């Protein structure tokens, strides 16, 4: 049996005006477990807290009920007071007789009666309280960033600048991501490479940053503060320490027919290649599917010409195991496949291209060396049609239901750049809405219309029909004029919807981070915790969380970094002791609880149990206290009642129910 002390606060007249405090003290004295009851003007005052300390000693109290204001106000105060008096802080319960009673009731009898019942419920609960102790876990002061695009680079730089070690794992041979494929950036039209490459160099040169390029995360275990990650470093077949990056191997490689990923398949690359000139690291990799040496055993030309002796055909994949305190997902995006959009003739004509392909066409290092030309015949186009929302805002299963957010702006950019460089080219943009919320965004779009004479037509394109003369007949609607437009174009550019990188599902599963129906990672709170995953220690940076442009991506990357820094700055993590716990003898191992856990805190272990003499190995739920946040979803999902929540146990809540209904 507990020895409970009840302390009833007057809160000046805030409580005492409508609750007969003395009466509450008097009635509550006869409750089971109560050995002491008193009232005081202000329990939260130092003198009030001192009274608790004295009573704990005098009456050898094991539990405390404070009848006062909301626990959201002073629960911590009274818990600390109890702790100072040598009691476990979780042996304190608050009966909220101010906000939930005195302040809303006018009749003193009514208020007193209710206050007694609330106090009784708190006493009933404390009778079942047990001391709880926050857990501690260590923090490995190193972060992992998955993805080496602008989001990943920025996050890593910010973490590293704060003085913490950070590793970037990038799947492709170079960091840089999609931003490295862009020609210019809106709304200021700086050259993408000019602003990105210095950041890439900074990342590579930073003493706190380690790059794992051409590498993938293979396995993740552990939890916040203490993750263990296996990274597969894929064999490059080039010794990075020896390679000088002279590029001779690529020049001499006889296999030059592989579509270049970097140029979106619009140009070819050699079998030994760096994706682009400013690649970091500037160390090529051998694509074994294209390499003649790997396919036939003959060739070896690259090895012969490499003066540094860096080519090593015997290299093997390597698994590196590292420990991290925090993991940032920055896996980015890609454009959707257009196979289901036959009406736009993307697969039928080389002159129908995506906007990202246009970036490569416009880029001096691209397949056309920056000349705007038709990919079918190399002729200069005179009429270009842009089609917006291709696959975005689609509720059918061909596209994506969301707005891809960046297309309106990059299309304005493309249209403007084309009109600027080739004033004789007519540009028509078919749009549904032009969405330009952002600093200087609408001004930018208006410039495209007003200064550069880009023809914006409100309406969608129904189909694009390749003509025998090589032109493209575009049939669209002009909703404002209520006309159907037939336009002969030389090129059609599709503002293709973006979607999260294909690998994100696999990565999210490894991290037990939740993902939405569109494969975007879910944030811990849509408004208040937008850069954290519900899974503790996992952070989100860039488009993996939702469509965004470069400035937004960079800000979010910085926000994710500061959250990581905030975590790594701690030496130890104190865990909330009000977590779920499975009773080994009752657990069925059925996985129902794990299915509702938003934090991936529940795993299963085969454990040896002794159930009243029956010794057997059982599959049993184990809650990771560092991950559990104490919501209690699992406790209700559990049919056998094995799962219970400390601090809000089934019996505690039932005791409150019983006390109230008595």
């Amino acid at each position, binding site marked *: 049996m507990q020895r409970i002390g009840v302390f009833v606060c007057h809160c000046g007249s805030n409580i005492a005006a409508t609750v007969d405090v003395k009466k509450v003290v008097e009635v509550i004295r006869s409750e089971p477990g109560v050995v002491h009851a008193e009232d005081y003007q202000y329990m939260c005052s130092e003198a009030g807290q001192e009274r608790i300390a004295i009573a704990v000693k005098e009456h050898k109290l094991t539990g405390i009920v404070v009848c006062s204001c909301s626990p959201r106000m002073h629960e911590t105060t009274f818990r600390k007071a109890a702790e100072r008096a040598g009691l476990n802080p979780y042996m304190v319960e608050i009966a909220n007789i101010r906000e939930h009673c005195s302040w809303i009731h006018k009749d003193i009898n009514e208020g007193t009666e209710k206050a007694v019942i609330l106090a009784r419920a708190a006493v009933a609960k404390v009778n079942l309280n047990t001391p709880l102790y926050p857990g501690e876990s260590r923090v490995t002061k190193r972060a992992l960033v998955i993805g080496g695009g602008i989001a990943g680079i920025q996050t890593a730089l910010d973490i590293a600048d704060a003085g913490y070690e950070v590793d970037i794992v990038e799947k492709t041979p170079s960091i840089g991501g999609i931003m490295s494929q862009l020609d210019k950036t809106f709304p200021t039209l700086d050259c993408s490479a000019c602003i990105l490459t210095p950041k890439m160099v900074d990342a590579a040169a930073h003493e706190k940053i380690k790059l794992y390029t051409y590498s993938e995360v293979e396995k993740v275990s552990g939890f916040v503060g203490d993750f263990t990650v296996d990274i597969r470093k894929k064999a490059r077949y080039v010794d990075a320490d020896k390679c000088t990056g002279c590029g001779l191997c690529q020049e001499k490689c006889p296999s030059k027919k592989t579509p270049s990923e970097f140029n979106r398949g619009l140009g070819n690359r050699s079998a030994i290649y760096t994706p682009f000139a400013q690649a970091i690291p500037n160390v090529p990799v051998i694509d074994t599917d294209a390499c003649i040496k790997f396919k036939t055993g003959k060739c070896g030309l690259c090895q012969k010409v490499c003066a540094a002796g860096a080519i090593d055909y015997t290299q093997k994949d390597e698994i590196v195991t590292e420990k991290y305190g925090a993991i940032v997902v920055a896996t980015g995006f890609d454009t959707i496949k257009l196979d289901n959009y036959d009406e736009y003739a993307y697969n039928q004509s080389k002159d129908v291209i995506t906007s990202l392909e246009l970036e490569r066409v416009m880029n001096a290092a691209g397949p056309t060396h920056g000349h705007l030309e038709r990919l079918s015949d190399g002729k200069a186009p005179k009429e270009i049609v842009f089609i917006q929302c291709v696959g975005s805002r689609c509720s059918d299963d061909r596209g994506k239901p969301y707005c891809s957010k960046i297309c309106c702006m990059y299309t304005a950019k493309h249209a403007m750049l084309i009109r600027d460089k080739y004033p004789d080219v007519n540009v028509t943009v078919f749009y549904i809405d032009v969405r330009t919320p952002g600093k200087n965004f609408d001004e930018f779009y208006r410039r495209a219309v007003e200064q550069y004479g880009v023809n914006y037509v409100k309406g969608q394109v129904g189909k694009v029909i390749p003509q025998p003369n090589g032109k493209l007949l575009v049939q669209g609607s002009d909703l404002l004029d209520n006309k159907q437009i037939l336009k002969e174009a030389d090129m059609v550019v599709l503002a293709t919807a973006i979607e999260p990188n294909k690998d994100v599902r696999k990565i999210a599963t490894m991290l037990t981070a939740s993902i939405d129906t569109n494969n975007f990672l879910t944030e811990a709170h849509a408004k208040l915790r937008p850069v954290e995953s519900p899974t503790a220690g996992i952070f989100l940076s860039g488009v993996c969380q939702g469509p965004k442009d470069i400035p937004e991506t960079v800000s979010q990357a910085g926000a994710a970094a500061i959250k990581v820094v905030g975590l790594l700055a701690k030496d130890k993590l104190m865990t909330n002791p009000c977590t779920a716990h499975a009773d080994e003898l009752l657990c069925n191992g059925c996985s129902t609880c794990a299915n509702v856990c938003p934090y991936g805190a529940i795993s299963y272990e085969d454990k040896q149990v002794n159930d009243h003499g029956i010794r057997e190995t059982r599959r049993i739920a184990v809650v990771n206290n560092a991950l559990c*946040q104490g919501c209690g979803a699992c406790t*209700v999902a559990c049919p056998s009642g094995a799962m219970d929540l400390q601090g*809000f146990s089934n019996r505690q809540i039932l005791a409150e129910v019983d006390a109230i209904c008595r």
Partner: protein
Amino acid sequence: MSVNNEFKPKIVAFCCNWCSYAGADLAGSSRLAYPADVKIIRVPCSCRVNPMFILRAFEKGADGVIICGCHPGDCHYSTGNYYARRRMTLLFSMLDYIGVEKGRARVEWVSAAEGVKFADTMNSFVSKIKDLGENVRLGDIRCKN
């Protein structure tokens, strides 16, 4: 004596710590009155509310049980109230099916900013329960102390 004979329902309100309990606090600090018949039990999340708690309350003589949580989409734990919503929908449907009066148990989403909504909800719930009268069907032979 007629005043004393007035039906005073027993009402248990389960409120999630993050939204509805705070909403109730706001109702209190805004001095928005609602009947003293309502007694609040604090739970971390609406998904902590086990159907056993509700049935137990009825068994022990409660006349109405209301569960309040964060609005869907605003759960502190992201998804808790979505699970609670399904659970409670099924439970209430079952109560209806076995002949318990509709409306004796209710779910309302009340945010921390909705003190007014909290008080309004409690007022309307209490008046509904008063209309329904004493809970006889779920208590049956009532446990009386």
